[in-house]
């Protein structure tokens, strides 16, 4: 039957997709794709710092993400702030700093390890990784489910949400933490550079075929699973890097979906 590594990779990918489905929908609805990209680049910095100080990877990632989330949450409160510029600046400083720190502390295996961080190492995950990913992914999903109504209400109109008794600030913080957690999980699978694509593309496809936010979230998870499965099969047969291939599979699904809609004459 299928090789062990393939089964592990597939299970990890499915676990991630279940979570990136709903999170990706929110990233699109809240126009936070640039924000998400900043978080994923910050993850690289976290990994580099963790390696340099010889700490647990997740601790390094966790600390950097909390700092960035805290910093950006404060910035979000300020109106008329050129957020996209700030994000662009922080995002690429993190990326550059992470790469430099990593190359200095890890010079022997720098090339290979950096490739794994940038593009993911889904093919070398262990059963322990599968379990960790599944559990943490489940935690994020349960959290999103619990906060679903609040997230939707704040996304639609923060002021109306305030008058309904919702603490918009706290809701936004929880959302950022779930997003950061989801991204940190996905980085191992699909890499720093392409995490955001795994959030955006399945949600974009789902948007074409859904009539309610819940349906869109579920469909996005399903499309993610399709993309992961298709991408891994292609990787298996053509020996291409797994992460990017999964994204290309997602892109192919998107093109097909757009074509189907055009043919059916729908908007």
């Amino acid at each position: 039957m299928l090789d062990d590594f393939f089964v592990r990779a597939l299970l990890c990918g499915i676990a991630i997709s279940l979570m990136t489905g709903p999170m990706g929908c929110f990233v699109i609805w809240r126009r936070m794709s640039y924000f998400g990209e900043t978080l994923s680049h910050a993850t690289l910095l976290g990994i580099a710092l963790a390696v340099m100080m010889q700490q647990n990877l997740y601790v390094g990632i966790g600390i950097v993400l909390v700092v960035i989330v805290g910093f950006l949450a404060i910035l979000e409160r300020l109106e008329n702030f050129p957020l996209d510029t700030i994000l662009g600046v922080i995002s690429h400083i993190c990326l550059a700093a992470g790469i430099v720190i990593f190359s200095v502390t890890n010079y022997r295996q720098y090339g290979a390890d950096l490739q794994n961080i940038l593009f993911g190492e889904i093919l070398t995950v262990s059963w322990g990784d599968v379990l960790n990913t599944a559990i943490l992914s489940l935690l994020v999903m349960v959290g999103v489910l619990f906060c679903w109504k609040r997230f939707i209400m704040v996304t639609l109109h923060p002021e109306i949400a305030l008058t309904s008794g919702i603490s918009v600030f706290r809701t936004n913080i929880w959302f950022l933490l779930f997003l950061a957690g989801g991204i940190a999980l996905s980085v191992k699978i699909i890499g720093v550079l392409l995490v955001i694509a795994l959030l955006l593309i399945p949600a974009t496809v789902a948007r074409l075929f859904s009539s309610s936010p819940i349906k869109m979230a579920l469909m996005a998870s399903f499309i993610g699973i399709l993309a992961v499965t298709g991408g891994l099969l292609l990787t298996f047969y053509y020996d291409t890097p797994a992460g990017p291939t999964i994204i290309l599979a997602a892109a192919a699904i998107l093109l097909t979906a757009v074509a189907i809609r055009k043919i059916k004459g729908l908007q």
Partner: protein
Amino acid sequence: MRFMPVKNELSIPLLKATDVQYSRQNQVILENINLAIEKGQITTIIGPNGAGKSTLIKLFLNILKPDKGYIHQPKNLKLGYMPQHFSISPFMPISVRYFLNLYYSADPFYNFASLINFMKIEELLLKQMRYLSGGEKQRVLLARALMNKPDILILDEPTANLDIQGQAEFYDWLEGIRHEFGCAIILVSHDLHWVMASSDQIICLNRHICCFGHPTIVRQHEDFQNLFGTAWQQKMGFYEHHHDHHHS
């Protein structure tokens, strides 16, 4: 303490502002605001752009807190808010029914169906929010604001994009709402002179309260008839300002 709980609801106004001041970034946006809203009263707040009308609304709604002064409200006062701007992301597929259900707090005595019926949005329930016309969106947002049977309905420039005819029709709706639901209404308008004829008080705002009073019903003059059409004459009132000061 910024909010003083009001114990006796019978003879005390629903909402009262005392010496309210609000500044931001070293600029005074509102100062010396003193006003009261009684039960079932229709109040129209008018003023030029930048007068602080939206800020005042947000102070009433507890979205913002005054820097000085107090906003007095009974502790269980229910407010219904219809914002000036409301746009749905083209990426979010959401039906009118799903949208309304978000704000629905299940009350066994509350007749959700009758509200839908009254606002005439029954045929819109399954329609996607992003495909609603301007008027349809307005009715849906009004229905949402009325869902918790508010004591005060607060509307921020609801007639901003409407012509005179549309305005008069909207005021007709509002009168019906007050009659049906018994709520007080606070209405912010961008028009400096033409207001809802059945307003109980008009407040002219420009960082402070410049003047206040009552509107006069439009007379049965031919010119007015041509402007409004006979049917809507009674809906539109004219407010004459009486400022005793000038602004630089």
